[in-house]
């Protein structure tokens, strides 16, 4: 127990400021954490709930989504959380080219989501199929299976790039509300 506590104390708080929105065309420095959290609450009235679906990825993109949970990015700390059911999700984060074997499961997940059904297609594969293209086994990019609001390039995209895309997408969505 003492060991655990002492490690916590020695490690301290690691969470970094959020990346700026890309409209600001800035590098990854930060916005203060609280206004961003406030922004999220203003926009959604609650936390942003994300459902992730691997539609056929190589697992590289998953690793960078998982990294968003590490203490440097601390995505839950700003009110973004990953949920287990599409019925609770504001946003669907889809990785991979859409394999034909996952096409139906992806469509069903999308259909189960409530409006506004925001969708981000993650990584070069999600954007256009990239190395896997379209074939007997792959439908290519996610937009060939379900409507996509935003794509994030990269193989895999880094955690700040993913975070920035999420923030970019929800801001205009909020303006419409």
């Amino acid at each position: 127990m003492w060991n655990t506590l002492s490690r916590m104390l020695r490690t301290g708080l690691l969470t970094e400021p959020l990346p700026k929105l890309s409209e600001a065309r800035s590098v990854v420095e930060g916005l203060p954490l609280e206004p961003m959290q406030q922004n999220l609450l203003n926009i959604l009235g609650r936390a942003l709930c994300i459902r992730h679906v691997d539609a056929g990825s190589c697992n590289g993109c998953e690793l960078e989504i998982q990294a968003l949970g590490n203490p440097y990015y601390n995505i839950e700390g700003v009110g973004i959380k990953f949920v287990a059911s599409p019925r609770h999700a504001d946003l669907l984060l889809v990785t991979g080219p859409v394999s034909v074997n996952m096409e139906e499961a992806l469509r069903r997940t999308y259909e189960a989501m409530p409006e506004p059904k925001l969708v981000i297609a993650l990584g070069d594969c999600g954007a256009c199929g990239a190395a896997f293209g379209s074939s007997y086994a792959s439908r290519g990019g996610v937009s060939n299976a379900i409507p996509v609001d935003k794509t994030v390039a990269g193989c895999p995209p880094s955690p700040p790039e993913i975070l920035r895309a999420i923030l970019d997408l929800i801001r205009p969505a909020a303006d419409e509300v």
Partner: protein
Amino acid sequence: MAAEKTDEQQVKMFGNLACSRIRVDREGWISTAEQLSESGARLLTLWGTDDRDQAGGFRIDAAYLLSDSVLVVEHRMVDEGEPWYPSLAGLFPVALRMQRAAYDLLGISTNESDDRGWLRHGGWPQMVFPLRRDVDGSQQYPVVSQPYSFVSVEGDGVHEISVGPVHAGTIEPGNFRFSVVGEKVLRLEERLGYTHKGVAKLFESLTQHTGHRLAARVSGDSAIAFSWAYCAALEAITTTTCSARALALRALALEHERLANHLGDLGSLGNDAGFAFGFTHFSKLKEDLLRANSVVFGARYLMAFVVPGGVAADLNTEARSLLLELYDALETSVINLRTIYDNHAGLQDRFREAGRLDRSTAKRLGAIGLAGRASGLACDLRVDHPWAPYTSLAVTMMTQKGGDVAARVQIRFDEVVESLRLCRALLTENDSGVIQATVPTAQSNQLGMGIIEGWRGPVAVVLETGRDGGIHRCHTHDPSWQNWPLIEHAIIGDIVPDFPLINKSFNLSYSGQDG
């Protein structure tokens, strides 16, 4: 060894490990397998090829790991009628799913009764075999989903729970069917293949000098292992020698891949056992390593680092001191966290005895890599069949006897420390040789095999060259093929809520096995 016991035709074979190849007829296919099984050889991989364009009919190959080399046994199905070959599953249970996959891709069957699709879930028509030469791989078909008959368990109070293919966390897709009484698991059946992306067919549209890029994306967490295995096969075929510097950098990257995955898993295992502290601390360490990767290798995940002939870039001048500092910090933290894990009663209570796979079951099922070592099977190619630069690194093999989640946790702790030692040693390789040798274009019909012990176990790439710098066939194999069936056994008698923890302790690849 077994190669000498037969007078069948010997075929030339290139590889980064000692490889030989024999051609056998249908009877020889089974009798060789029997001899190999008796001698303790393990089935490494199995793949089919359409050679009808070369008047050779269909071909099936099996690669076996012997104590001192790799033996590839090849059988050509040139008889009239439907192509088939005798199943190896009675001797090597791991063959079963690979044979089903070979059928889905090529329409070559066995005498097994299980004819359920493994990779084909209805995404393309039943009589279309995409890896045949006369099938256009770019053609798309509407999905006609088909029911899959899981084996059901009869009995009082037995019910079934189906999980997936979309899971609750940020993980890959697969379907798990549990037969349970109360919470206790009587039987688990896995259904995989959801992320099949047609990798084998895609390779045939690439050139020998671009295939490594696709190889790096077969399983993103093993990008170095796969791209190295691909390049090793091509380099063996073209008798290209990489500089000592390039090989040291590849090994450094491979050990970083091992470290990143082990650190991530140690954190997730803590988390899945209800100790979020573990996730916080290990995910921090993993992030530190990835950030260092980005500084010294130019990317967090090294999809583009290993290239034919060597590596894409050398380390910059600050890399050495930055890395040595990182390794010290990681080692201190990991040793400290290990004490915390070891002394945490709640954690140990969840780890011990969970998902136990005893040595004899592991051996019978053909377990390999990390999961095999955790059940007491001494198998690590860096030790058993070292290739350069592992030939001069004297890797210490880590094994455990327990075969439970706790053992798979301990192996990771041990391997992290050993990997850090290897990384330090690799940084002293400062020969200033070129980092990228020129790789000539190979003639057609040359067969080469690259085998690299990645963090999960041996990753294999079999490359067969085509005309004009093209690829006739490229088969990629992830050790998850061997180890997925282990989980079906390890879970028996445990409770369903322990499945995520047990599954994570193996952390197998879906994409790597789906292809």
